[in-house]
């Protein structure tokens, strides 16, 4: 319990530091935050209106942060005057797209990583392992932007099937699975390739150790079929590190999603964030970054707590320490 409390305190501190950094960053080079919030070239009357709604914008940063935090916690996420839309509505409109993109990216990453990682560990140093090792090293060394360009050149512009670049739209899978696939496959693949490469290397290294452990030798000695030993006994111990990596990659995944959304479309929350940064739409930037931080940190805390569920030895160590 004490451990959980410590983790939660750390989570709150990280959240405060990140959101404060973002708030401070949006005020760099800005003489009049109220004008930025109102949308730049606007009349005095509109600025007065913004000032009436947010009277704290002239206060010191810490005070501004206090007001913002209070509003954020109570669910008053503010309003984008540039888009004349409330921030909560914006989330409802844009969030599903980004969530699906991230989800499919993780799924594709795992679909690549698990077979490749497991099989190359099983047949270590054979042809398959050699080829996939070189391949995954190459994929890790390919910047996300280059992967996106290659997908554009070799897939999107060759096949009419996929919507042309930047034209992908958000279609919910329950409305039309085919359209959903068309719109999400390429952007998700552009993220999934990198994830798959990282995870397959990780899984391979882990599985090589697992295959040499006593429990696997024991299982084999008991006459359990090699396939079952490989996919059940050995893979289970490697799930821990894979889980950690999934959580660790969350923030990189969102960073990649921003690029993928701007490049291919479905225009989700990342695309909206970039637009907000261009406009210096204060409240939108702060709300989106706050939500992203919560998502990333929660994923890490969740994995951390899952450790204890999966591995009783860690549970013991923690209750002792």
């Amino acid at each position, binding site marked *: 319990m004490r451990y959980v409390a410590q983790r939660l305190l*750390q989570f709150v*501190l*990280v959240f405060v*530091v*990140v959101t404060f*950094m*973002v708030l401070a*960053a*949006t005020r*760099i*080079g*800005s*003489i009049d935050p109220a004008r930025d919030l109102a949308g730049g070239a606007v009349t005095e009357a509109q600025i007065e209106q913004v000032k009436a709604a947010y009277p704290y914008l002239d206060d010191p940063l810490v005070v501004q942060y206090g007001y913002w935090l209070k509003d954020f916690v109570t669910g008053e996420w503010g309003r984008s005057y540039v888009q004349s839309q409330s921030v909560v509505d914006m989330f409802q409109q844009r969030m599903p797209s980004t969530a699906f993109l991230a989800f499919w990216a993780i799924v594709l990453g795992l679909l690549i990583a698990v077979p490749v990682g497991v099989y190359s560990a099983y047949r270590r*140093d054979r042809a398959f392992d050699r080829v996939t090792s070189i391949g995954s*090293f190459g994929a*890790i*060394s390919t*910047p*996300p*932007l*280059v992967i996106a*360009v*290659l997908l*554009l*050149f070799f897939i999107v*512009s060759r096949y009419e099937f996929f919507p042309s670049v930047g034209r992908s739209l958000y279609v919910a899978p329950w409305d039309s699975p085919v359209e959903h696939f068309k719109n999400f496959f390429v952007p998700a693949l552009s993220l999934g390739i990198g994830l798959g490469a990282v995870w397959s290397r990780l899984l391979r290294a882990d599985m090589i*150790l697992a295959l*040499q*452990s*006593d429990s696997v030798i024991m299982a084999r000695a008991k006459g359990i079929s090699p396939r079952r030993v490989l996919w059940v006994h050995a893979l289970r*111990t490697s799930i821990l590190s894979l889980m*950690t990596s999934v*959580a*660790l990659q969350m*923030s*990189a995944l*969102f*960073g990649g999603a*921003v*690029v993928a959304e*701007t*490049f291919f479309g479905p225009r989700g929350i990342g695309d909206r964030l*970039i637009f907000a*940064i*261009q406009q*210096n739409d204060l409240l939108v*930037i702060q709300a989106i970054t706050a939500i*992203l*931080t919560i998502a*990333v*940190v929660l994923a*890490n*805390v969740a*994995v*951390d707590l899952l*450790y204890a569920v999966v*591995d009783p030895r*860690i549970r013991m*160590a*923690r209750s002792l320490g």
Partner: protein
Amino acid sequence: MTDAAATAATIAPVIVNEVPRRRRPPLGMAFGILWLVTIILLTVLADFLPFVRGATQAPRGASNYAFGPGVDFWFGSDRLGRDVFARCVYGARISLIIAVTSIAIGLVVGTALGMLTGYFRGWIDRVVSIFVDSLLAFPAIILAALVVGRAGALRESDIQVLGLGFTWLSNAWAITAVFAVLSVAPITRIVRAQTLSLSQREYVLAARSLGARTPRILVREILPNVVPVLVSVLFTGVAILLAAEAGLAFLGYSVEPPQASWGLMVTENREFIDEAWWATLFPCLMLFLTVLSFNLIGDRVARKFDIREAAL
């Protein structure tokens, strides 16, 4: 989560029946060094080499991607008729300077912070750890875009600090500064972990019982053992930052247009990829080969000194 990973690592039975592996010739490393030397020579000598045109020089009749890759234009010409090869070379200069400078700053600050927090623990460790966790919990590219965008606004505003304006603050400087700050976080974490384990070693205890002062222990006993890690981090870090610069350029936060960086070239030309693949794919190729080279060298160094990349 690092603590948990550490506990998991100490508890998990690690039995390695290391099969003696055949020594493979370091082909990757050789390729990496060769490519980097070529690139660095090209960028340093670009102004003097007869076959490299100016970055903004546009020969008559070459605009609208008139030339494909060939004898006159090795990598073809771009929409404004500029030589793609020349721009790749000058782009390398900017991309590499940004990446290497920020990693250098990050290494100095990160090593200092990591060694201090790892050796002294206590409250300073807690405070620094919170900041490191915060920087790592947030997509770096978004923070970078935000700060570089605001730096642009700062440059155009007439805000003065101590009587000085910010007209000097070009995007290249802003990117370098942000990347430096962002690279401090992982480096601090890596060095801290290394220092933690090193400070428990016998020779540190021996030095202390011989009456060595703390600064001496840090500099003479611990620092030399951190250096191999730093070399590996240097190469991997440059690779990561080169990729990050490309992503940032795509989002519209790179060097100002007449200048060239690889990411900017990809961004400028990708809409015309069907008509003129060369203007987009050659910068991509340069970017890939350079990142690959840095990774190959970093990987080799890490393997040589048996460094776990867990913290990265």
